[in-house]
């Protein structure tokens, strides 16, 4: 199984993701995840892929970090 990590963020009203050198943008979360899935399927060479989606807290204003230090992580698994 191939393991990938996508760093998730939010800027200027859009969800963002960085996976390898690729950047993804979408106004809705589902649309961003679909882009990531599509990309991994196309570049997975037919193998099973596990994508770790991890939110980068730098995109939450720092003032809020005193209240909560985690937004979300998620794992997506794609079959071979």
């Amino acid at each position, binding site marked *: 199984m191939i393991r990938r990590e996508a760093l998730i963020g939010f800027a200027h009203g859009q969800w963002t993701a960085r996976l390898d050198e690729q950047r993804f943008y979408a106004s809705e979360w589902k649309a961003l995840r679909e882009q990531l899935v599509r990309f991994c399927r196309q570049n997975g060479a037919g193998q099973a892929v596990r994508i770790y989606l991890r939110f980068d807290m730098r995109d939450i204003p720092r003032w809020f970090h005193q209240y909560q230090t985690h*937004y979300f992580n998620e794992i997506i698994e794609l079959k071979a």
Partner: protein
Amino acid sequence: MEANTTQVNRKWYSGMLRTEDWWAAWLGIFLFVLGMLHIFHIDAVGWMIKPKHWELTDLMHHFSWAKLLKTSSKTYANWHPLAALLFSYIALLLMTTAGAYFQGWNLRKFVSGFTTVFFLTVFTWILGYEAHISAVDATVKGHNWYREFGLSWGLQLGGASFIIALAVGLLIGNFFKGWASQLAEAAKPEWFIKTAIVLLGAKMGIMAMKAAGFTKDLALAGAAAAFVAYLLIWPVVYFIARKYFGLNRESAAVLSSGISICGVSASIATAGAVRAKPLIPVAVSGLIVVFALLELVVLPPAYVKMAPAQPIVNGAAMGMTVKTDGADAAAGAILDDLHRVQHLRQTGEKWEEGWILSAAILTKIWIDIFIGIWAFVLTLVWMRNVDNHGVKKKLPASEIWHRFPKFVLAYLLVWFVLMFVMKFLPDILPAVKEGAHLVQGSYRKFLFMLTFLTIGLITDFSKLRGMGRMALLYGLALFVIIAPLAYLVAWIFHHSMLPPVAD
């Protein structure tokens, strides 16, 4: 340093050096360990200043710093009060600046901001001990300050320093916004209060030595009440937000958590859980902070007036009603003072300090712990019912851990260390108690004072502008649904509990 690159929670130990939550744990433990050096006959904490009862005419007649300030322990009693003040400032500045450095804050702004905040806090702390404001006409520990100062009148408020600090903070935060923004880097009420709560663990340990059964009951009742409040209040607010205010699912969920559970912390956790845009909790948080301040000012005197014979119920209800840890602890401290002063004036009997406050904090701590579990459950529900398109998604159990309030671990650690010593190491118990008493006394109270001042600094009432519908929902939900329900739950689990009488 991690703060300069990404701030991603990959491992269980992620954020140990870069988050305020962890730094509250580190600072609290550090101070506790310093206190424990008493075991080796080393007093490493007694230099911390604390105010003395003073009277204005007397001070003006013969001014002396020694009438205003003293050190926490007799070891340093021969220090000049200003030397102790300077040493306290430098020591606390070094400790907090270490945290600021690792968290990647602007050190120049932090140091200048903390310096101002520190001395403003000391000023308000001293002011609150003026006899006409604080002295109560009753004998406590052999002193009746009201009579000893020969007062003909007095407000008899007991600990008024908290209110003065809050008022000064609010004044600066709302009328001198340029100055407030310069202090912003050091205006960290959540950090200060979480560190204070860790030290409150020492207080709980000491209290448990005196009344183990009552402490256990208080902790268990707090857990049960917090759990019931979650299940009861959240669905009601969510339903109203959807049905009568037309909010979408994400906004309703975030707002419900913010109003009904634990303010900003829960709203961010819920927003992440339901994959809401971070803009939503940011918008909701402005409301939460302003309303939390209103609650902390309005509810303590209202509860004391409404139910003077139910101090622990009132404390627990406060923990479930007042949002944000800082505002809750602040409200609990005010409630503790008001109840004890009223009881003292009416009966001449002094309830031990800290139990009512602990009731408020214990319910809040349980709520903080449950946030992670609640967010996890919400994510599962969302994935299954709302966000269930196509691909196979897994929810790592570490999500609960990443949202777990780490300062609670330090609070429990400190508490259990004291319990352990009491049970298995009775020979060193007197020294341990002495050290614990010092850190949970002056340091904890000073951190509370810092919290009051900085809550005032960060509360900007102008943020309510343009939030009409949400503000209306928030106000309605808070005072019509949450406060009564929380009170009912608190009463069910805590009624007839009374604080022990002080020695």
